[in-house]
Every structure is written in structure tokens, then in C-alpha cells.
């Protein structure tokens, strides 16, 4: 049922998370790397000589019949498929609820519609692109495919989109639901790419995705992707690890404030910096925003293995979902691929902290291997 029964349990502290953690029982990720096959883990890293990374497609005929696939735009295909991979991975046919995040919805199909209405000066436009333009299209498409009649939410708030879906999932579990399918998806549209170029946010070409953190060059590489997870109360044979909690903060005024948020977040979750083995940093190649991240890496995370991920998936507002996937894979395999290591302090990935930010949106997540 869709109603949320009240539960006496409350979170320990503001946005500190559940404390006990939710088990990650299924994952599905489609990204500019070959990530759709859960039996692999970045065995081969894809190198791009461009500032725009696009998803490596899975075989979508495995997920949709020819009749339903024909109207789907690119993001709808890879977003929905990532959700289905996570469900299958968890051995679930129907999740308890679905909560998703997308910063920009489905810009390619929306712009196709916009383009046609401008070109014909509002005379006659085709409805198919319009009906796919609402931000909840992927989330509801998954519900439609697996007949999930329960809670279905879509958050569209920049760098808080995936984070809000995670909070929603934690609340749902408090409200006695289970097996929440939570995920995020975004795509880099031609328009967004042009805007990123114009505002100089983007790294100039020629560039190489495997070489963006060094001194030379400035700017991000545009990216995209979809990642979904089944979060549950109980551990299964397929469990990757536990998601302990997350916290978002808006417009911090100094590195000091960020530092305080990190330390208080760890404390709220009965953890401390000493417990953390691996830090996933949101370092992106843009000098200005990286300055704070590098400062923290140098002065706060002095004993942890530091890893980066945006050379693999590019920069986009829900990239923290890719980092969530990375954390899940590392916890289960107890391995850290060489291709993500920035600073190796030979720690095994038991307790993992993610700190990412997109402009004013800052986000923390904590993971614990089982």
C-alpha cells in the first residue's frame, strides 16, 4: 500500500541518517564506462579524447520489447534499464517503492519538442516528445514496467536530486516500507553542452578524461549516467554493503564550515575520521572548485586512501549516484581499482566517506562494508 504508517523511531540527529544503515542489495549502473554488467568492475577503463562523455549503452532489447522501446529517448532507455538491472540484481520483481533524482529531467526529448514548436511556429507538434518531457518519466516508466503501484517520487534539485531521493528512501524505511528502489539519472544534452562551453565551465579540447586532475588544463568534462540501488532493512547473499546515511548542506561560507559539517556528520553517525578508510572526492578538474577539495584532501584526509571518479563519468549534477555505485562495488569486492586512486594509503575499503559538491550544493554519504 501507498500509505506511510507512522513509526515511533526517529533519526538520531538532523540529517545524520539512520545510524544502523540500510543494506544495498542490488545495483545497476549505466555510465560512460562499461558498468552495466555487475559481474565486472572497471576491468578496462574507457579513454575519451573529448570533453563530453556519453553512456556506453547496454543491449536494451533485453529490457524492453520492440513496441515499448520505439518511443523511448536515449535517457529513458538507459535510465529505465539501470533501474531494471538493480531490481534483477536484488532478485526483486517489484520494489517496495521508487524514489529518484534527476537534475534536468529529459532535456533531449524536451528540446526536440521545443525545437519543433519553434520551427513550425506553434502550428502542429507531435505529442510523443511532450509526454516524455516531465521529470518523472523514468521513475514512472519503471513503475509501469514492474507494476509498482506504491510511492513514486522524483526530486529535481541540482546537486541535491539524488541526495533527496536517498533521504526519501530512509524515511520510507522508517515508515515501515522495505526494498526501496532509489536512483538518479541525467544526460548531457547538446544545449547543456553548448551552455557549458559558453560559460567556460568546460575544459578545452584537446583533452583526455584520464588526465584531468593535474596542473595542466582547467575545467570539467561533461558527463552523464544513471545508477540505481535497492536499499533494504535485511541483508541478503547479494548485499554489497550498507549505506549508513547522508547529509546535504547549502552554500557553506568557508572550508572551515565544510570541515565542521564533515566532522559533525561522522559524529552523528557514530563514526570519526579515524574510522574512515577511503574518501571519495568530487574533484573534477575545475581549478576554482577543486581548491577546497584539494585543501581537505591535504589537511583533513591525511590517513585515508583518496579516490576520484569524475574522470570516469564526467561532471553532472547527479554524479554522486555514480560514486554510490563505486562505493558499493568496492565494498563487495574489497578492492580499489588502480584507475580511481589519487592518493594510496593502503587501506581496505571498509568505511567509505563521499564528499561531493556542485556549486552551492554539498553532499556527504557514509558507507560501511558488511
Amino acid at each position, binding site marked *: 500500500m501507498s500509505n506511510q504508517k507512522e513509526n515511533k523511531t526517529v533519526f538520531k540527529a538532523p540529517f545524520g541518517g539512520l545510524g544502523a544503515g540500510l543494506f544495498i542489495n542490488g545495483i545497476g549502473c549505466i555510465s560512460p564506462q562499461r558498468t552495466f554488467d555487475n559481474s565486472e568492475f572497471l576491468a578496462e577503463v574507457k579513454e575519451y579524447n573529448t570533453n563530453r562523455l556519453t553512456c556506453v549503452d547496454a543491449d536494451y532489447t533485453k529490457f524492453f520489447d*520492440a513496441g515499448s522501446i520505439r*518511443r523511448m529517448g536515449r535517457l529513458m532507455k538507459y535510465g529505465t534499464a539501470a533501474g531494471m538491472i538493480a531490481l534483477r540484481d536484488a532478485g526483486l520483481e517489484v520494489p517496495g517503492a521508487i524514489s529518484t533524482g534527476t537534475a534536468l529531467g529529459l532535456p533531449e526529448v524536451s528540446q526536440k519538442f521545443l525545437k519543433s514548436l519553434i520551427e513550425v511556429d506553434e502550428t502542429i507538434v507531435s505529442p510523443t516528445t511532450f509526454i516524455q518531457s516531465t521529470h518523472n518519466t523514468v521513475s514512472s516508466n519503471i513503475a509501469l514496467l514492474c507494476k509498482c503501484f506504491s510511492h513514486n517520487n522524483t526530486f529535481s534539485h541540482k546537486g541535491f536530486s539524488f541526495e533527496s531521493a536517498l533521504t526519501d528512501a530512509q524515511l520510507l524505511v522508517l515508515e515501515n516500507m522495505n526494498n526501496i528502489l532509489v536512483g538518479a539519472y541525467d544526460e548531457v544534452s547538446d544545449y547543456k553542452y553548448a551552455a557549458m562551453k559558453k560559460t567556460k565551465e568546460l575544459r578545452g579540447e584537446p583533452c583526455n578524461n584520464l588526465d584531468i586532475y593535474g596542473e595542466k588544463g582547467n575545467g570539467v568534462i561533461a558527463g552523464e549516467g544513471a545508477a540505481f540501488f535497492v536499499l533494504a532493512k535485511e541483508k541478503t547473499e547479494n548485499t554489497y554493503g550498507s549505506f549508513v546515511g547522508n547529509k546535504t548542506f547549502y552554500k557553506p561560507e568557508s572550508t572551515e564550515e565544510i570541515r565542521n559539517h564533515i566532522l559533525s556528520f561522522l559524529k552523528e553517525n557514530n563514526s570519526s575520521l579515524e574510522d574512515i578508510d577511503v574518501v571519495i572526492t568530487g574533484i573534477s578538474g575545475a581549478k576554482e572548485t577543486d581548491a577546497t577539495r584539494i585543501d581537505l584532501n591535504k589537511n583533513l584526509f591525511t590517513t585515508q586512501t583518496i579516490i576520484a571518479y569524475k574522470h570516469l563519468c564526467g561532471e553532472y549534477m547527479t554524479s554522486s549516484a555514480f560514486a554510490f555505485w563505486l562505493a558499493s562495488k568496492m565494498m563487495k569486492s574489497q578492492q580499489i581499482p588502480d584507475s580511481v586512486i589519487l592518493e594510496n594509503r593502503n587501506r581496505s575499503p571498509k568505511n567509505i566517506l563521499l564528499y561531493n559538491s556542485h556549486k552551492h550544493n554539498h553532499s556527504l554519504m557514509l558507507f560501511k562494508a558488511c
Partner: protein
Amino acid sequence: MSELIATLKVQIIEQLNLQHLKPEDIGDDQPLFVEGLGLDSIDALELIVLLQQQYGIKLANPQDGPTVFKTVRTIADYITAHKK
């Protein structure tokens, strides 16, 4: 008429993204909706767009859709009858 039917099949495949079909897969009298080709209400709207864009024919009442869009032949008949 047979020429119009052949052209229509190509246009329908294009407009409705039926890339998994070839024109010869669609029978002249095969029902397009539900039990036939499996088209739905959104496709009916797309066919209205097709008529307007390609043939300048405006189907004012969507309720007429099911009769007009029954088969490729009924569409061709409608076009022949309404084309100026």
C-alpha cells in the same frame, strides 16, 4: 490508391518510430490498433499530426480517430475523400 497505401506505410513507420517493422510487414487491411499492430492513443494523436503535416488534412474531432485509423486502407480512403 495502392501507391498512396505504400507511401502511407513508410510514413507511419517513420512517424510512429516503428523501426522494427518494414512496410511489407503491415497489411493493407490489418487493424492498426490493439489486437493488430498494437498501436495506442498516443499513436492516434501522431497519426493526426501525420495527416495534417503530410496531407494538409485536419481531423478536428479525435473521436473520429478509431474509424479513420482502423487500417492503412481506411486512412488512404479518408485522405482520398478529403484531399483538396
